[in-house]
């Protein structure tokens, strides 16, 4: 069965996010001040799996072996048919 995994990868709580700081600075310059901005990255991946559980397992494997770096990242997985 073909599944679509939506994988969201972000920095762990407390990790410095220089990209967000730069964006926050620019937003401030445009009149949108904020001191709370987070950036995340989304991967939409279509692949074959035996069932929903297998698809989640595979998506987790993708995160742990390549997409996320456990030192700095957390990840969330949503799997759809």
């Amino acid at each position, binding site marked *: 069965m073909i599944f679509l995994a939506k994988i969201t990868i972000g920095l762990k709580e407390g990790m*410095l996010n*220089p*990209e967000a*700081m*730069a964006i926050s600075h620019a937003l401030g310059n445009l009149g949108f001040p904020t001191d709370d901005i987070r950036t995340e990255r989304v991967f939409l991946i279509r692949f074959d799996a035996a069932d929903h559980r297998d698809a989640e397992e595979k998506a987790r494997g993708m995160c742990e072996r*390549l*997409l996320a*770096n456990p*030192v*700095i990242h957390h990840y969330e997985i949503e799997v759809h048919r």
Partner: protein
Amino acid sequence: MRFAVIQFGGSNCDRDAHYALSEICGVDTDLLWYKEGLPRAYDAVIIPGGFSYGDYLRAGAIAARTPAMKDIIAHAARGGLVLGICNGAQILAESGLVPGVFTINAYPAFICREVYLRVDQTASPFTSLYRPGEVIRIPIAHKEGRYVAPGTVIRELEGEGRIAFRFCSPEGDLTPESNPNGAMGSITGVLNREKNILAMMPHPERASELILGSEDGKKVFLSMIAHIERSGST
């Protein structure tokens, strides 16, 4: 004695490393395209700087998962030396061969300039020719070089003497101003537990001839050569 310099797609300091080893240090050195893996035994493998795979996903992430790394891991498991410079250091961290990660600089700009480093560990195959605490001048050139690791890992590295280099002032002090990328503990050179793998962000091959302003980096290569001479070539 024979060294190898691995070329990934996007490596761009491979020829500099090859030149520093073969022409300046006088050691036989092969340039190897990564798809060849390690076709023979080598005493030392250099993973050079550059932008392997365009730094897609994270710097070093994709190169770290190529089949060539299996050969390099096997070489290291046999006690062979592995030196990762800049992108090579990122690849070693992404491979898990050294702990932690080299990630985007605290001020997210590409920094290319000379910096001062303090040699914190001279009991390693890469640093034995330096004096303990010696301050050396070597360039950096990176945007993703800020060393980050959990506090427990930092304490372990410190306890086991696995920090080879830290950014410092010209006097050897660790100050925020002398830490160009915001690295934890100003760390920029990390050894594995067995001390036969070194991941360093600064470029010793760019500081191996006086005509380039400094030859402070040459002792990294000469230390490796001296270590291999002492322990016997493969």
